[in-house]
């Protein structure tokens, strides 16, 4: 960009009184300088503000995903920048005396112009001058370039297409959630979950759905698996309790039917014992069956009780089948439930009729204290003690142990390793026994062969011991 120049520059202050004309021209030069400075500072400050504005727009668009109306308030900064530029230019404008000195020096005016502010020139005013005003040149390149770049940056910040970061892709888990909802409904209907527990689980499902993210499906599927596992554990626990309940019901049903069928064939004592047993079973089951009294059980009541038990058992089985149909429990657990419900009341009735006397006798024996039950008595049977046996005349016979056939393994010496069985000489006893003075027993003794490489060590041993006493053995040859 071409430098701006003062159109009045370089012209001589042509007037009758050169000093007065020069003073007037210098004032104009100062105003011109302030105007140019204001324009330059305006460009610089506006460029800085527009850069900041563009940065704010860009940051907002990236973080929020779109432009907002309040971003246009950045326009307010432009008039503020102009005011600041004017104030700064006013401060930086050279003083009148400085510009006067500048003109004086460039014109080589002999000091009259600067003296005119301090003293009366008198007749010298006509002789002073002429003065040549300098031209002001402003460097527009930097501020204009900066302003252009700033405007370009602001435009790009407004118009640059940004990736839709906020459009989060939700994971398609509706089918899984629907299955879980059905399972929760079934568990609530079967009274495995209370209403508040079921509602809590449904709320968890909603949260999983809201927080599902296609960018990170692992967390969502993990949450779904956790819910599914929780439901399965609850169903499995209910199934285990159902197996136990069905088994108890089946046993009670079997006993009730057997007692009803054998009512005339068994003695009344056995009948009452069976009733007591049935009463205990019903008490263990609890619920509606725990309220019943066995004294009121006649043949019809027993049949009716058996029917109720059968209905309850079938109800539990149906519940388990429903849980299995919802894949909350596996087929094996359902099979266990079904097996637990099987009974044979006819066989039990026949057994009671045939063995009623024996059963009573055995039961009577079991009632005797200290005799135990069928085999060695019950745990709570009384303990009976007879005459105690003394320890007089009895004692342990002291028998000396035979000497060790081999020395301690720590004292053994590795003479070699081979894959074949070790060769031993059974005709010679070992010499390293701890009981050296004891006579070898009748067991086999191992005769160790002294190898030629050991002869030196053995020789030194006997030479040493000759000084302190007789060697215990003859040196080997």
């Amino acid at each position: 960009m071409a430098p701006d120049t003062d159109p009045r520059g370089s012209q001589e202050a042509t007037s009758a009184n050169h000093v007065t004309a020069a003073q007037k021209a210098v004032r104009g030069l100062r105003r011109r300088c302030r105007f140019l400075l204001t324009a330059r500072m305006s460009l610089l400050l506006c460029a800085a503000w527009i850069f900041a504005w563009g940065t704010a727009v860009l940051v907002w668009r990236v973080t929020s995903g779109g432009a907002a109306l309040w971003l246009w308030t950045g326009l307010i900064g432009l008039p503020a920048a102009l005011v600041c530029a004017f104030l700064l230019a006013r401060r930086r404008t050279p003083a009148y005396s400085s510009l006067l000195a500048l003109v004086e020096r460039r014109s080589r005016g002999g000091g009259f112009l600067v003296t005119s502010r301090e003293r009366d020139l008198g007749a010298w005013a006509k002789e002073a001058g002429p003065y040549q005003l300098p031209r002001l040149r402003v460097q527009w390149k930097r501020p204009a370039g900066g302003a252009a770049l700033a405007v370009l940056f602001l435009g790009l910040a407004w118009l640059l297409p940004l990736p839709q970061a906020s459009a989060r892709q939700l994971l398609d888990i509706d089918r899984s959630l629907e299955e879980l909802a059905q399972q929760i409904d079934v568990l609530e209907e079967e009274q495995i979950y209370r209403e508040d527990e079921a509602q809590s689980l449904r709320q968890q499902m909603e949260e999983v759905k809201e927080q599902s993210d296609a960018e990170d499906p692992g967390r969502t599927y993990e949450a779904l698996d956790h819910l599914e596992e929780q439901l399965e554990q609850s169903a499995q626990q209910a199934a285990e309790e159902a197996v136990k309940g069905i088994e108890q019901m089946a046993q009670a049903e079997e006993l009730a039917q057997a007692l009803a069928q054998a009512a005339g064939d068994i003695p009344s004592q056995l009948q009452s014992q069976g009733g007591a047993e049935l009463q205990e079973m019903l008490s263990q089951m609890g619920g509606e069956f725990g309220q019943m009294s066995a004294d009121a059980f006649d043949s019809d009541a027993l049949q009716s009780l058996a029917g109720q038990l059968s209905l309850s058992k079938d109800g539990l089985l149906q519940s388990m089948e429903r849980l299995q149909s919802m894949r909350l429990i596996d087929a094996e657990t359902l099979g266990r439930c079904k097996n637990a419900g099987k009974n044979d009341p006819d066989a039990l009735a026949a057994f009671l009729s045939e063995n009623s006397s024996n059963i009573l006798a055995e039961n009577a024996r079991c009632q005797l204290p200290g005799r135990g039950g069928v085999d060695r008595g019950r745990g709570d049977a009384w303990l009976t003690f007879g005459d105690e046996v003394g320890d007089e005349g009895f004692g342990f016979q002291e028998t000396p142990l035979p000497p060790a056939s081999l020395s301690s393994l720590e004292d053994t010496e590795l003479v070699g390793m081979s894959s074949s069985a070790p060769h031993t000489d059974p005709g010679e006893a070992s010499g390293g026994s701890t009981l050296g003075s004891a006579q070898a027993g009748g067991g086999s003794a191992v005769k160790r062969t002294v190898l030629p490489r050991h002869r030196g060590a053995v020789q030194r041993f006997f030479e040493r011991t000759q000084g302190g006493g007789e060697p215990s053995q003859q040196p080997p040859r």
Partner: protein
Amino acid sequence: MSSSNTQDPNSQVPNSPSSGEKLLEPEELAPYVEKSSAVLQQLDRMLLGREKLHRLVLAGILSRGHILLEGLPGVGKTALVQALGQLLRLDFKRVQFTPDLMPSDILGSHILEETPQGRSMVFHPGPVFTNILLADEINRASPKTQSALLEAMQESSVTLLGETRKLPHPFFVLASQNPIELEGTYPLPEAQLDRFLFKLNVEHAGAEVLDRIISSRRRGVMPAPQRQMSSEDLASLFQAMEDIYLPKAVSRYISRLVEASHPQSAEAPEIVATYVSYGASPRAAIALAEASRAVALLAGRPTVGFEDVEEVARAVLNHRIVLNYQARFDKVGPNQIVDELLQALDRRQASLPEGVEAV
């Protein structure tokens, strides 16, 4: 005979402007300009081809300063001083400085003499008791002898055996030194250099000037002056010097110029920071102001302009700026430093802000 003057002849001229707030009118200034121009004209007529040098020497005389002339032998240093002595009609003495020259050879000494009153120590003034003293080849004298001139140059007085004797008014020392044959010389110390208002280089005359000299001067004898200046005329010129106005802008410019000659100054240009060890002293600023006034008077103006300062800046500052060894290695002289200083101040004169410049 000894004499003791307690009054400084130089202080006879008042230091404050005599005309108050008013500048000298053109008609008031005209006689002084005519006198000074006449001296210059005579000088130019007597010594050919030295117009600028003559103008500076006369400015130095009007500033009542001492001048150190440096130049090769035979370039006219002594002739210039002799011509000045003739023109100004002042007493002129010449001392050839040698290594065995003693202070008493310059200042004078007391000698026991038989007088009608009996024997007494009589003071015999030395050659320093004159108006213009030419100290020829001053750097050949010992420092002891050189320093004997210190008081004479600064105070215009001589103190011997406790008695202070004033030198004649006016008193100028015009010294010369040879830039070659430096073996056996004693360079002037900075303190003594600072007492010289100007250090002027008397350069070799060109072929045209030489042609004029040999064609118009037999044996190089310069013509006698056609017009001489009386001591009263010189005193009036000194008086006129007091009325030359130094504007504040120009005095500020002088202050900045001297301050910028110091490498520690914020306004010092790069060349000063690189090559200058010590800048000019406050005496340099005073010398610049006085010499600028003299130049303005010679130009016929009652006010000092920036161009007057620039004209004398080299002569005033070149011997007052102490350069470092780097300057010697890079062959940077004091005149180059002064020129850069002037240009740097020119660029900053108006304190124009960044991005705006005056062309």
